[in-house]
């Protein structure tokens, strides 16, 4: 049924795909962002519809409820102001003591809010797209957090107005982590595992020492080795552990602090 011209077209398409598959890194990222830019009008439309629905919902809230919410927010604001003042004092004290001991001073996190506009349509990757890019001062490998400070992932491809984020649980994202807690300091690597990924918000903490004494419930935070993620970003809590390779190493399952399936907005940590 196929004609000679059809075979020529098929050969052309196969060659084009083979060339595309050979592309790596920056060129492929730029090409992907250029093609996915075609979806911008639809993303804009979706955004406007969300906003419109939100506004319509707000108009339906009774005045009494709004006043109650304002009172609650005022109260929360006052408490946060007090905590901020206390934290500033502690920060200054910490900086002074670090200076006296000769340790490197910590820098405050600078963050920018971004909205999640799309998720990876393929079932074998964990990534999402956000509506911020080079125009907003973003660059590749910046850390992405939730509103309560839990680690989400890092920026992979950054376009002018959008960026692609690799999320925890994706095989392309490995994070050096440390188990927090008294006398712990156990370090390992957060890695994806297909069986863990199937359970909502679970990852593996691999390469712990065989004699590790980590316990369920202990917190896991970023270690800072590797230079991509600053130390101390919360990752999650240990659920259980198991011995691997005849007791040579230990692996722990970690429940992520961030609820990755319900993300609407994220914070990107600026350099």
């Amino acid at each position, binding site marked *: *049924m*196929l004609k000679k011209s*059809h075979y020529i*077209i*098929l050969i052309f*398409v*196969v060659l*084009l*795909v*083979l060339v*595309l*598959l050979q*592309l790596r890194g920056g060129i*492929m990222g730029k*090409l*992907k*962002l250029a*093609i*996915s830019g*075609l*979806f911008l009008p*639809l*993303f804009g439309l*979706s955004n406007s519809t969300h906003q419109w629905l939100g506004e319509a919902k707000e108009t339906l809230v009774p005045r009494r409820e709004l006043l109650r919410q304002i009172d609650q927010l005022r109260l929360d604001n006052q408490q946060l102001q007090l905590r901020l003042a206390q934290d500033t004092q502690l920060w200054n004290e910490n900086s002074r003591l670090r200076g006296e001991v000769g340790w490197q001073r910590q820098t405050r996190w600078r963050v920018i809010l971004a909205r999640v*506009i*799309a*998720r*990876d*349509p*393929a*079932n*074998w*990757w*964990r*990534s999402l*797209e956000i509506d911020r890019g080079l125009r907003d001062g973003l660059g590749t490998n910046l850390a992405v957090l939730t509103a309560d400070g839990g680690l989400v992932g890092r920026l*992979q491809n950054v376009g002018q107005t959008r960026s*692609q984020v*690799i999320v925890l*649980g*994706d*095989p*392309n994202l490995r994070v050096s982590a440390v188990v927090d807690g008294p006398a712990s300091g156990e370090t390992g690597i957060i890695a*994806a*595992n*297909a*069986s863990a*990924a*199937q359970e909502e918000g679970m990852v593996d903490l691999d390469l712990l020492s065989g004699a590790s004494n980590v316990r369920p419930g202990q917190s896991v935070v970023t270690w800072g080795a590797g230079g991509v993620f600053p130390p101390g970003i919360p990752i999650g809590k240990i659920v259980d552990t198991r011995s691997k390779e005849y007791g040579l190493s230990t692996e722990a399952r970690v429940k992520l602090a961030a609820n990755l*399936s319900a993300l609407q907005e994220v914070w990107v940590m600026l350099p």
Partner: protein
Amino acid sequence: MSWRPTIFVLAAAFVAVFLEASLGFFRNLLGAQIDVLPALMVYAALTLGFTTIVLLALCGGLWFDSLSLNPLGASVLPLLLIGLLIFQSRDLLMREHLFAQVILGVAAGAAQPLATLFILLNAGVRPLLGWVSFWPWLVMAAGSGVVTPVCFKLLDRLRRALEYQPVTQSSFRPDREIKRGRS
């Protein structure tokens, strides 16, 4: 040849990829996202021509990969292969039958992720894969089986609504006119 059906199918693929990326309903409910592109390819291969199959595989695959961590082009060849296989044997397939549509949808939905994973693994990429990946694969195959008849219904209706219909022939023939009475 009219370009309208091709444009309808490409527009449907564009919207489908956008919805797959932006809506998390099936992902949250079933634990996996349903892919509509194999179902559209079954429709294109049984209804339209070679050009539409190639364009759908190329555009649909590239659109899908651009929003995913897949290397660009990884989804093109599996879609093209499915389309060509159905296109080659479409004279033997009963296009109008719901059962045939569902079976072809399931087969296409099952084959497409397998072929894509084969390409990914051969391209040196390591996707999230294990025994538990069997469940998303089942969801994709079953979802494609459900979506395929819907695609046939919607796109056929759209074609009928927007295309010129062939003029129906009258059954009147002057040589077969019955003359009554005496002549």
